[in-house]
C-alpha cells in the first residue's frame, strides 16, 4: 500500500510510468537530481505528515518506503 502511493508520487513528480518503479529503483537511475528528490520528499512529508531530515541518505525507493514505515504515526 505504501509502495503503491510512493510509486504514484514518484511517477507524478518525475513524469515517468509507475511500471518503471520498484523497491530497488535508485532515484539516480530515474535521472532524478537533488531538486527532483526534494519534490518527492516534500510530497511524502505532506502525505504522511512526517519529516525526513537527511534527504541525502535517500537513495532508493526502498529507503523511502522503509522510512515511512518506521516513522508514520
Amino acid at each position, binding site marked *: 500500500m505504501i509502495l503503491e502511493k510512493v510509486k504514484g508520487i514518484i511517477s507524478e513528480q518525475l513524469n515517468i510510468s509507475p511500471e518503471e518503479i520498484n523497491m530497488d529503483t535508485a532515484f539516480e537511475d530515474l535521472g532524478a*537530481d*537533488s*531538486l527532483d528528490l526534494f*519534490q518527492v520528499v*516534500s510530497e511524502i512529508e505532506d502525505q504522511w505528515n512526517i519529516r525526513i531530515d537527511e534527504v541525502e541518505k535517500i537513495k532508493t525507493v526502498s529507503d523511502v518506503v522503509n522510512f515511512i514505515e518506521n516513522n508514520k504515526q
Partner: protein
Amino acid sequence: MKKAKISGVGCYYPDNIVTNDDLAKIVDTSDEWIHKRTGIRKRRLSTGENTSDLAVMAAKNAIKNAGLIPEDIDLIVLATTSPDFLTPSTAAIVQGRIGAKNAACFDILAACSGFIYGLKIVKSFIESGAYKKVLIIGAEVLSKILDWNDRNTCVLFGDGAGAAVFEAAEESGIETVNIGTYGDKADLLICKSHPLNNPYYKEDMDTFGKISMDGREVYKFATNIIPEQVNLILKENNLKIEDIKYIIPHQANLRIIETAAKKLNVSMDKFYVNLNEYGNTSAACIPICMDEMNRHGLLNNGDKIITVAFGGGLTFGAALIIWSK
C-alpha cells in the same frame, strides 16, 4: 477613492555579463549543473557600482517613462537587502542624486518580497490621500553579500534594479496586495549584519555579511506559497486564472515556477520569466520584469496581472495590478 495607477516603469543593471561558464572558473560548478537545477544561464555582476548607483538609473528611467520630472515625486520607497549604508537609507541617496527634493524617503527590508511589500505601502499611502506620486524601487547589489566559496548560493543571484511610478488616479491600478511573514522560519535564509564588537563583548567575525540558505526548505516554501497566494488573490477578486494575462513570479528558480504552474494547473506561458538572463535579483526582479514586459509591448491597458514573491523572513506576498499606463 483614488487608486494607485501605474504610470512608469524602468530598470537598470550593470554591463558586466557573467555566464555559468565564467562562474565555473571561480567555484566548482558547470553550466549544465546550474542550468538544469535553476534555469539560470547568466547574470549581471557589479564591477564597482553600488546599490544606489543602480537604483538612481532605474529611478530616472521610470520617472521619464511616466512623463514626470523628479520634483513631481512626493514619496520614494526603496526595497533592498543590500543597501549602501545602514544610514542614510538608499532611498535618501537616490532622492539627492536625482533631485527629487519634494519626496519623503525610506527603505524597506523584506528580502525578495520587498517590491510586493512596497506595493502595499504605495497602495495604502495613495488611497489614503497622503501621497500622490510615488516612486518605488527594488535595487540590489547582492554580489557583495554572496559567499563566493558556496557554490550552492553564489550561482543563484545577480545585481540589478527596477523601479515603478504610481500616481493617484480614478482609473484602476493596484487592486489587491497581500503580504505576510513566517518569522518562526527566519533562520532558513539569513545574512548577518555587524558583529557585536564593543568594549564588553567580542563576537566571531567569520559568519557575518554573507547569505546562507537552507535550499531545500526554502524551495518547499516557495513551491507552496506561489499557488496559495495566487489562488487567494483570485478568490478575493472573484476571478479565474483565465482572467489573468500574466503572472510575474519572483525570479528565484525556474523549477520553482514550473512546480507552481503545475500545482495551479496553468501553462508556463502565463508566467513571465527572465531569470535565465539575470538570475535572482531579489527585490529588483519584479520591477525589472514589468519594465521588460512594457518595453516588449506585452501589456495592454486593462490587462490583469498577478505578481507574487517569497523570500527571507520568510516573507511572501502577491498583488493584483490592472495595467493602465
